């Protein structure tokens, strides 16, 4: 009788231990072969690139002059200065390690160019603190920024950005509290901008944009509605326009618009690339 109960207890214990061992072996195997040992780290967004009258002054400090003295005490020959392109006007640039973008005015239209992109056969190959270097037929060309920085810098969301102004302070033509065209740029009065910047309901009452898919991929945001006579209708946006990029950043993911709205408090200028029918346009805005 006691032998039977002993056998029974041993069988129960064996079954229990075996069950637990199989479970443990299963998890150890799965853990070793398939499961990661650490979590995913957050890569925070760096904020949307700011363009137009914004550039990185970190590299504009005059570099110490290093004289290259050879054995005969003759200075080294100066490198040949690239020719200037007169038909292009450099209106703004963004210079960082990750991205180099310029805004170029050509034939009255503005173009956002990233490093390596071409305009009229001129390939944008290098960005300096205040100029951009192009290449065409093996020859270098350059265009320079026409505006000068001021000593006092306006702090923005990213320490890389400084807001320079023109040598002569521009007269602000904004009289009414509504967007005003100044050349290629639409100037949005600060008060008007502040009125809308945090009020998404008010924005949606006046304008709406929906994701625009091309070949199953997000390729921009289509303006589905603009209220007639509203402040937004004066921004140059029309129903059916597809916003394909902001400040040269393609809208092929939700990160760019989300960053744009997240950093809207510090926005002073922006360039929207839009597709209207078969035409590509750049809409430039400045908040003053």
């Amino acid at each position, binding site marked *: 009788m006691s032998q039977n109960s002993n056998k029974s207890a041993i069988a129960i214990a064996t079954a229990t231990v075996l*069950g637990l061992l199989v479970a443990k072996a299963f998890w150890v195997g799965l853990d070793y072969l398939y499961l990661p040992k650490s979590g995913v780290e*957050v890569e925070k967004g760096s904020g949307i690139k700011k363009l137009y009258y914004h550039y990185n002054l970190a590299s504009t400090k005059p570099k110490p002059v290093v004289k290259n003295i050879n054995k005969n005490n003759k200075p080294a020959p100066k490198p040949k200065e690239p020719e200037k392109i007169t038909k292009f006007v450099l209106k703004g640039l963004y210079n960082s390690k990750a991205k180099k973008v310029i805004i170029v005015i050509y034939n009255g239209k503005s173009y956002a160019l990233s490093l390596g992109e071409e305009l009229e056969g001129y390939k944008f190959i290098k960005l300096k603190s205040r100029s951009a270097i192009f290449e065409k037929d093996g020859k270098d060309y350059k265009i320079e920024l026409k505006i000068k920085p001021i000593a006092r810098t306006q702090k923005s969301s990213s320490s890389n950005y400084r807001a320079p102004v023109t040598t002569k302070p521009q007269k602000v033509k904004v009289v009414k509290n509504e967007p005003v065209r100044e050349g290629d740029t639409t100037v949005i009065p600060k008060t008007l901008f502040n009125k809308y910047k945090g009020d998404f309901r008010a924005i949606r009452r006046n304008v709406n944009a929906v994701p625009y898919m091309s070949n199953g991929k997000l390729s921009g945001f289509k303006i589905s509605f603009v209220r007639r006579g509203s402040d937004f209708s004066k921004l140059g946006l029309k129903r059916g326009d597809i916003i394909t990029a902001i400040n040269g950043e393609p809208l092929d993911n939700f990160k760019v618009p989300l960053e744009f*709205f997240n950093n809207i408090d510090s926005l002073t200028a922006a360039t929207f690339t839009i597709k209207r029918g078969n035409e590509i346009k750049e809409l430039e805005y400045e908040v003053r």
Partner: protein
Amino acid sequence: MRLVRNLSIFLLALYLGIILFMPKSNLYYKAEELLKKQGIVIGNEELKSSLVGLKVMHPVAYYQGLDVARASIIDAKVLLFVNMLSVEDIELLGVAKNLNIDIKSLKANHSILNPFYIKLNINGSFGVATGYVDLNSKVVHIDIIEPKDINPIKRYLKKAQKGWYYESKF
């Protein structure tokens, strides 16, 4: 008879072993990897394993690197046949903050009897809602059963005879 008894004990021990020895934190890391493919990352969290589950304290959800929501706790209980996930005090951040809603609690229940169906219970500033996620047809359906302040989210809702509901495909 003994064989049946021993087999039953073995299966019971196996079931308990699978729950107890489950590498909960590493499974959570795997879930994080899968979410990252969708652009979602959970950060700032502190993990606390328990016998039958995992508590994720103070998680912040990031979408494409931007913070979109924060919760006080995510409590997951895994019993294999029945699994539960509850998220408490969800606060929307960044652009999502403009929705002007707070979610006090979100509970998701999954049963092995209906493996492609997840039942949802949500309590927020917009009221009380119930719904489901159908993994087969890839549909999320939420019915607002006791509406309070639905104005901030009205544009995302549809109206039916029973009341307001939200539905989307993924």
